[in-house]
């Protein structure tokens, strides 16, 4: 008897969540996410000893400013895309590489449900690690007296991270399902295509996720050199509604495309 699509996805999700959480990839994720937490601990220690962690034009940057820099430079620009590349591209590729895809595809479930279940497991797994890390960073870096005035932006940041993981994950799930060397393509997209196109004038930046995520960032973007300076000149920031619309389109569209590919593609496992 064949299971319904969502019921099947749920079963795959249950199976995959544990596998993902206790895989070697999670050690990599913990190391990547542990970096900002360690940085926040250092900032806190400096604060305790009366030193300033970050100065701009000779003036000390407040806790929420430091948190904004960590959020933008480390989490949104680096950690979210990197995690999405490593997990998203591996959703189907791991099963192909381990030659275990046959076991999943011979079950009486829709092939697309396998991908959707794994995608949901990826989102849950990464959020379970990333969001608590951001929470720790926030409370380490931002003094408690500043919490009432800045808590709203933390909520926005958490939502933004979840959205970023979902959208990048969907894009790389498609890349993983469609291309033969998904990891290379994913890394080229993240560290080649997106940063390059973001500083170029014209409409090409609309074919990036970062362009729309950037529009939702609540903190003033820190100037980190010539790249940010160029972005400042060429910035064509879409409104929040437009950014949310396109991010949703990207997430749903690429996930749908990925399921279509998985449904139709004939995977040949190397013997």
């Amino acid at each position: 008897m064949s299971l319904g699509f969502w019921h099947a996805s749920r079963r795959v999700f249950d199976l995959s969540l544990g596998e993902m959480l206790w895989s070697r990839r999670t050690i990599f994720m913990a190391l990547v996410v542990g970096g900002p937490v360690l940085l926040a601990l250092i900032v806190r220690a400096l604060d305790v000893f009366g030193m300033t962690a970050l100065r701009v034009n000779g003036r000390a940057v407040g806790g929420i400013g430091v948190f904004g820099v960590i959020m933008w430079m480390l989490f949104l620009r680096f950690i979210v895309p990197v995690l999405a590349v490593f997990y998203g591209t591996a959703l189907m590729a791991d099963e192909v590489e381990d030659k275990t895809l046959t076991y999943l595809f011979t079950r009486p479930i829709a092939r697309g449900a396998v991908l959707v279940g794994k995608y949901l497991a990826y989102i849950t797994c990464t959020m379970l690690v990333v969001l608590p890390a951001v929470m720790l960073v926030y409370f380490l870096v931002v003094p408690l007296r500043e919490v009432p005035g800045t808590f709203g932006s933390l909520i926005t940041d958490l939502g933004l991270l979840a959205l970023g993981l979902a959208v990048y994950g969907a894009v790389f799930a498609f890349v993983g399902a469609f291309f033969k060397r998904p990891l290379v393509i994913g890394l080229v997209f993240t560290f080649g295509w997106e940063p390059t196109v973001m500083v170029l004038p014209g409409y090409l930046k609309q074919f990036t996720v970062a362009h729309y995520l950037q529009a939702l960032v609540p903190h003033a973007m820190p100037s980190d050199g010539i790249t940010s300076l160029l972005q400042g000149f060429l910035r064509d920031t879409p409104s929040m509604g437009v950014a949310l619309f396109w991010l949703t389109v990207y997430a749903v569209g690429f996930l749908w495309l990925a399921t279509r590919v998985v449904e139709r593609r004939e995977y040949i496992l190397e013997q």
Partner: protein
Amino acid sequence: MSKKTRYFVLVSGAILTLGLGTGLVASYMGLPVSLLSSAAGPNELQYVPQDAAVVAYANVREVMNSEFRQRFRAMEPPSAERDEFEQKTGLKIDRDIDSVVAAFMPGPDGLAGDNPERSGVVLARGRFQAAQLEVLALQHGGVAEDYKGKRLLTHLERDNSHPMAVGFVESDLVALGGIAAVKRAIDAGADNRNVVSNNEMMRLVAELDSSNAWAVGRFDALANRAKLPSEVQAQLPPLSWFSAAGHVNGGVSGVFKAEALDEASAQNLRDVLRGFLAMAKLQAGSRPGMQQMVDSLQLSGEGKVVAMSFNIPSEFFDALEALAKQKQLNGR
């Protein structure tokens, strides 16, 4: 889902829930400042209402014990009024007061003139004879009551206007001012809705924490309070915040900082002050006593910040003292 996966989900969820819960409680109900982090400035700031536009602090103990104060104390004449005040209240200011915080809260329109009993509060930390003060207040027609668990002594003027109050907010801390202002101070401490959550103000306070007397605030609140003519107000530089800090010991040193609304205004102000400094140096050239003081004036600051610092060494006061003694001798 395996057992260890379930534990992982639970721990992760607990961190998120704890963080979100703490943030929500802090946002909607406030949190004690002492919890998890220490705020800049004295603890009395917990009793300064959130909308305070100017806050000033003086470490009375340090100032009173300073060489500077001792130097002038010897010159003070004996005062019968001071002795009487001491006898009645049991309070000797230079012995019993450790520190003082004063705050000015403008009304909703930025002007406090119509409602002075709401606009200012002074918080003094020290050793007070609460029972003696209460008896004294009742003898003079005052009323003693409890407000949110704190003892409050109130006193009305003869025409029932401007009610004044003294609130015993902690065992060694009293709030003085208009009754409404004192009640607001007690509310600020009880609800944790105080100036400590004003990030801009606290940023300035943190910069001045090592001084034994300082004041920070919004410049517009000062300008409005001064009730300057509109022609004069129009000529004032567009400043947003100001801070002044002094350190009193053998000599006196201090710095006055102002933040302009934009860099151009700050540059204009720096130019004007530079001109004044040059003129003062010219004038002081012919008066050796003033030379040292004018030379200590330093103009600094970058971006929107303009800072003027000074340092009057104890030698300057030695010279002044010698001059005064000489005049006294000549007078005889």
